[in-house]
């Protein structure tokens, strides 16, 4: 066989593998959602679930599924996808798997603002989410400005973010000590991330964010990958660095802030999705979609585990936080050894 044909078949094989990987992730997501819909405090037969979703009135089951389980599954999946996509964007841009928005302070900005609204201003509902999104964007901007010194170097950005994040976390912890016990539960959601009490109404802003910011990121994905090779290389290859970076950062922060507003800062999802997706697909093409799917799968399954599989009922953020710890160690150990960035 000729060399050209060899390469062509190799590429085809890679594409096929990538498609299979994506299909497997999508299947896992569907399975997770199906489980969430069918199993809770009680188990509903699959046929009843289908019928309820198609609009048949099934009495008590209809309430359980439409009001309790469906919003939970939908919000989990959407928020997870936002976290995954936003996280992998940061990791690629800053060339460091640890530089995810939950570690460098963007989620903690959103959650500090939300807790402040709930505890100090006694607000609730949509306005809290709006403030959380605004604060996430504001903190990202602040970090960027503070790290600016004739150009924002990745390392400085990360470290400034860690400093800001430590300050905000201590502020949030203080606010929680001021919280009356009735709002403590609600405020705790903003510390750890949870989809308890999710409503279908929250899905629309998430869907819009995913649609708008997600398509911006997908449109810029080639430039983003070129940028990951280094600024000089990217400039040499004709990428408008400044514009691309601003567009990418705003879109990624937007995704994370909206997801945080809906579900709280679900620990480590933004951080884990990219690397997990990279392992599953063996660095084969853009990681944006795989990471989004991985994030959705992570949140849906972790929420299911927290609700049903564990002895006490834990919010999803606790489950992902605890799961994340060993993976984190593994990841740093492996990546540092190979010197790879993701």
């Amino acid at each position, binding site marked *: 066989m000729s060399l050209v044909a060899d390469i062509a078949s190799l590429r085809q094989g890679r594409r096929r593998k990538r498609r299979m990987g994506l299909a497997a992730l999508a299947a896992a997501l569907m399975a997770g959602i199906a489980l969430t819909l069918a199993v809770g405090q009680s188990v509903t037969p699959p046929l009843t679930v289908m019928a309820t979703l198609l609009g048949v009135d099934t009495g008590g089951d209809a309430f359980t599924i439409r009001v309790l389980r469906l919003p939970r599954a939908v919000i989990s999946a959407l928020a997870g996808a936002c976290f995954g996509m936003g996280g992998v964007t940061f990791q690629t841009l800053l060339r460091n798997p640890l530089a995810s928005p939950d570690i460098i302070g963007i989620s903690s900005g959103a959650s500090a603002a939300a807790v402040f609204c709930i505890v100090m201003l006694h607000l609730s509902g949509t306005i809290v989410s709006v403030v959380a999104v605004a604060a996430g964007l504001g903190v990202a901007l602040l970090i960027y400005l503070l790290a600016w010194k004739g150009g924002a170097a990745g390392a400085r950005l990360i470290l400034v973010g860690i400093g800001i994040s430590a*300050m905000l976390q201590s502020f949030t*912890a203080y606010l929680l000590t001021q919280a009356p016990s009735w709002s403590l539960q609600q405020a705790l959601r903003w510390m750890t991330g949870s989809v308890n009490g999710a409503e279908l109404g929250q899905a629309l802003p998430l869907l819009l964010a995913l649609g708008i910011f997600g398509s911006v990121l997908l449109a810029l994905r080639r430039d983003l990958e070129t940028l990951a090779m280094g600024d000089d290389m990217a400039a040499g290859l004709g990428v408008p660095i400044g514009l691309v970076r601003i567009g990418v950062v705003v879109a990624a922060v937007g995704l994370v802030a909206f997801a945080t507003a809906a579900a709280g800062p679900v620990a480590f999802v933004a951080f884990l999705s990219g690397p997990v997706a990279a392992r599953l697909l063996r660095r084969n093409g853009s990681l944006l979609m795989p990471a989004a799917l991985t994030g959705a799968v992570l949140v849906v399954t972790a929420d299911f585990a927290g609700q049903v599989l564990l002895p006490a009922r834990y919010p999803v953020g606790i489950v992902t936080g605890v799961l994340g710890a060993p993976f984190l160690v593994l990841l740093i150990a492996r990546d540092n050894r*190979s010197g790879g960035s993701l």
Partner: protein
Amino acid sequence: MVHAPAPLMPRRVLGARRLAFAAILLGLLGIAMLLSLGLGSRVTGWADLGAALSGEVETMGEATVASRVPRTALAALAGAALGLAGAVMQGVTRNPLADPGILGVNAGAALAVVTGLATLGLASAQAYIWLAILGATGAAIAVYAIASVGGGGATPLKLALAGAALTAALASLTTAIVLPRGDIAGLVQSWLVGGVGGATWDRIVPVLPFLGTGALLSLATARKLNMLALGDETASALGESLWRVRILAAAGAVTLCGAATAACGPIAFVGLVVPHLCRLLLGVDYRWILPASAVSGAVLLVLADVAGRLLARPAELDVGIVTAFLGAPVFIWIVRARRVSAL
């Protein structure tokens, strides 16, 4: 080498400057402690102060001052411990950003204490401290190990990231333990902010031996830390066993952090800010930096506690949040002041 070189000045000038600085620091500590005794939601007069310190507790004012004595003592002790621990950690890791809060050491101590509270019940103050030191040790080893795998060793960036990530993971575990336990949630929540508010002598006395041991261990390594600062190769060439120095110094720092955290909860940034200030004023000799960091740490924490009482009168801000808001800007300033290649 990571630390900025000391400004060159004649030995005698430096010596005089150091003595003057030591005198000023001790004076500042005295003033800070007097302020801490006198100020709060009720301001007391000099007469009350004098009377209460000589043991009279009859009027309201005197009682107020008397109740402020243990908290002032705790703030000074914890501040000294954290300042000293921070200086040692910066020396051992040769890293300007090392701080027990940033590196996750306090979070490790907190997790261990909360686990103990939830599973063993609050057995005794002694058990509490041992747990905290155990947790601090575990976290310190984990962070250092994570950050030093791979090329380049434990750079400031890798250490800080590993610390932040580990803190996040440990915090989730802590919350996971607390959430199903409504009975201890309030207690843990207020402890986790870091404060010296409810200090009593019963809480302070058991910590003292640990603080003493940690301080002795740390101070004993000062000369060796100077050699370590010259770089691994030079230090080995001078005949130092690097690992023994590191382990001894780190053991001292971790004991100090664990004991301080057990007494007043995780307090961040004191250990970061203070050594930098001392290095700026005193040069790079750890035999001076270590004791100066201890005293300055005490001054800082006592003053932060006073500020917390005055800012939110008649309520009070916990000292942990005051130091976080003071320390984060300093942290950012340190990051900005360095070249990227040094990070």
